[in-house]
């Protein structure tokens, strides 16, 4: 090694010492993984949130003329059609609007198209039926693909309980020639890469059955080039661990607004309302709710999981669970209006207490964000969590380097 090389080593070593690592790096990184995952799932949170909003709009558009209550077909079809029309008007398509057959609603195919936001950023939009009475239309920001990425997932139809068949769809890089959904047991299901007229990037779709192998409900999306060489494999967990178990285990805990919490097998908590699941815990099946709240690296750091606002919860309600020390949870809306809910005993052995209440009129924490504060029985503040709404999280500065290439 010559003199320059030796000096270079010494100089780089010395300079390297000047770059510290913050003690909160692990938590910050975990937060990013969650944020990235949420964005990549097509922005599923915004999608669900918008779904709620547009479904209301659809009812207004289609149902404002007092259709007969039993005329569900007419309302249903008109709802989706008008919702699609409105969404296309508000988010003008770039290129073709791609039609993807919906396994659960053969007469109402999924529509997928690209559009541009006001700031010129590419968005991928879709409109589809969520349930027989709910329609969804949404657009999500498409960040530029990284060099190593071949595609992204934009949406997956019904996830709980897993249906007989599902469809996943998303965007693909130009070089992608084929896509295939694979299961852990070796089964594979070829999809389709659509290069429609004028599309800024291909759209891929793949249809696959809901009888996933035992274990986590995971699938892989394999993207390959025209020669069949794999470009990337994306792994995806389709839903929380209680995806296949629809039957509650024991009696429920009633909360405000007709919401009832039930434990299912595998430490899975599901909030039910009017016969429908309206919230589901995402703890590992081997962790009780309380243990999950104490997990290092968990986000949020505060011991709370809460559902509030359009797309996350029943309209006008908020509910969730927290640790056993917390006697009261306060929600501070974006405009500083406050509501609070006392916690009630949860399920034996779970180490968590439940809460629920009504939101301030018109408040939408999922969109606008909110601050949640937990208090002990003597009024001492135990924890605080500031939840960012999807609007501000979409508008936030992109992470380093993501806008390049």
């Amino acid at each position, binding site marked *: 090694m010559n003199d320059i090389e030796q000096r270079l080593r010494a100089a780089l070593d010395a300079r390297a010492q000047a770059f510290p690592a913050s003690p909160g790096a692990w938590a910050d990184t975990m937060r990013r993984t969650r944020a990235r995952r949420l964005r990549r799932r097509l922005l599923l949170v915004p999608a669900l949130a918008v779904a709620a909003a547009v479904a209301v709009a659809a009812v207004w558009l289609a149902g404002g003329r007092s259709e007969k209550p039993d005329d569900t077909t007419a309302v249903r079809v008109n709802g989706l059609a008008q919702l699609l029309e409105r969404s296309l008007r508000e988010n003008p398509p770039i290129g073709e609007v791609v039609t993807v057959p919906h396994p659960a609603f053969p007469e109402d195919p999924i529509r997928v198209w690209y559009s541009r936001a006001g700031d010129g950023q590419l968005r991928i939009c879709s409109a589809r039926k969520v349930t027989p*009475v709910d329609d969804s239309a949404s657009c999500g920001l498409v960040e530029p693909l990284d060099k190593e990425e071949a595609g992204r997932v934009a949406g997956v139809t019904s996830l709980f309980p897993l249906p007989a068949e599902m469809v996943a769809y998303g965007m693909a890089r130009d070089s992608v020639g084929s896509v295939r959904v694979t299961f852990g047991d070796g089964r594979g299901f070829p999809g389709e890469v659509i290069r429609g007229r004028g599309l800024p990037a291909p759209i891929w779709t793949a249809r696959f059955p809901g009888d996933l192998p035992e274990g*986590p409900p995971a699938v892989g999306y394999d993207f390959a080039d025209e020669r069949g060489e794999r470009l990337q494999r994306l792994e995806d967990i389709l839903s929380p661990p209680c995806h296949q178990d629809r039957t509650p285990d024991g009696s429920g805990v009633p909360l405000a607004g007709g919401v009832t919490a039930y434990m299912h097998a595998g430490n899975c908590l599901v909030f039910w309302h009017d016969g429908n699941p309206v919230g589901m815990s*995402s703890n590992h099946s081997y962790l009780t709710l309380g243990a999950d709240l104490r997990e290092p690296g968990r986000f949020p750091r505060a011991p709370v999981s809460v559902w509030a606002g359009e797309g996350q919860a029943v*309209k006008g309600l908020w509910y969730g669970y927290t640790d056993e020390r917390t006697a009261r949870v306060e929600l501070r809306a974006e405009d500083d209006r406050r509501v609070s809910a006392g916690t009630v005993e949860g399920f034996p052995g779970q180490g968590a207490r439940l809460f629920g209440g009504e939101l301030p009129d018109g408040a939408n924490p999922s969109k606008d964000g909110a601050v949640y504060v937990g208090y002990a029985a003597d009024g001492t503040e135990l924890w605080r969590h500031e939840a960012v709404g999807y609007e501000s999280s979409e508008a936030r500065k992109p992470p380093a380097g993501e806008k390049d290439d």
Partner: protein
Amino acid sequence: MRLLSTGDPFGCLADVIDLPTVAPPSFAELFAAHYHSMVRLAGLLGADDPEDIAQEAFARLHDRRLRDDGAALAYVRSIVCNLTRNRLRHLRLARRRALDPPEAARSSEHAVIVAEDHRELLAAVGRLPRRQREALVLRYWLDLSEREIAEAMGVSPGSVKTHTSRGLSALGRALKEDS
């Protein structure tokens, strides 16, 4: 309105990433062992916010869930290089910032640690073309092999040889001129 929310608004779906089959300890161990060196790598490559780069790189690794530690580390290194490169390109800071770490990162001993001859050399490194600087930092700070450097930089091993050799020559010339 009946919609299924498959989790809480804070990252519900992400919470199921670390299912038992994913071997989360391996990621945590990798993070513990290499996070700081990735911060330093980003800093040495000229990133204005090295922690941001390192965290983003690990977040991407977490998404990829590479099970092989060697592959995972190589992946993180390449992401740090890519992100730093992109950052510099975007912010057009490559020349202005050179190898200066952010002010907040300077410790009180910094001036002592980085002796004058180091400053001169580091300033010269900072003026090198991006690829040459990457090759030199990866070679002489991380002690990577040509193959590993090639992987991190996304170039061929032959290019690594060229960048390294040209970088060293350029440093030699710069130091002669300065003296």
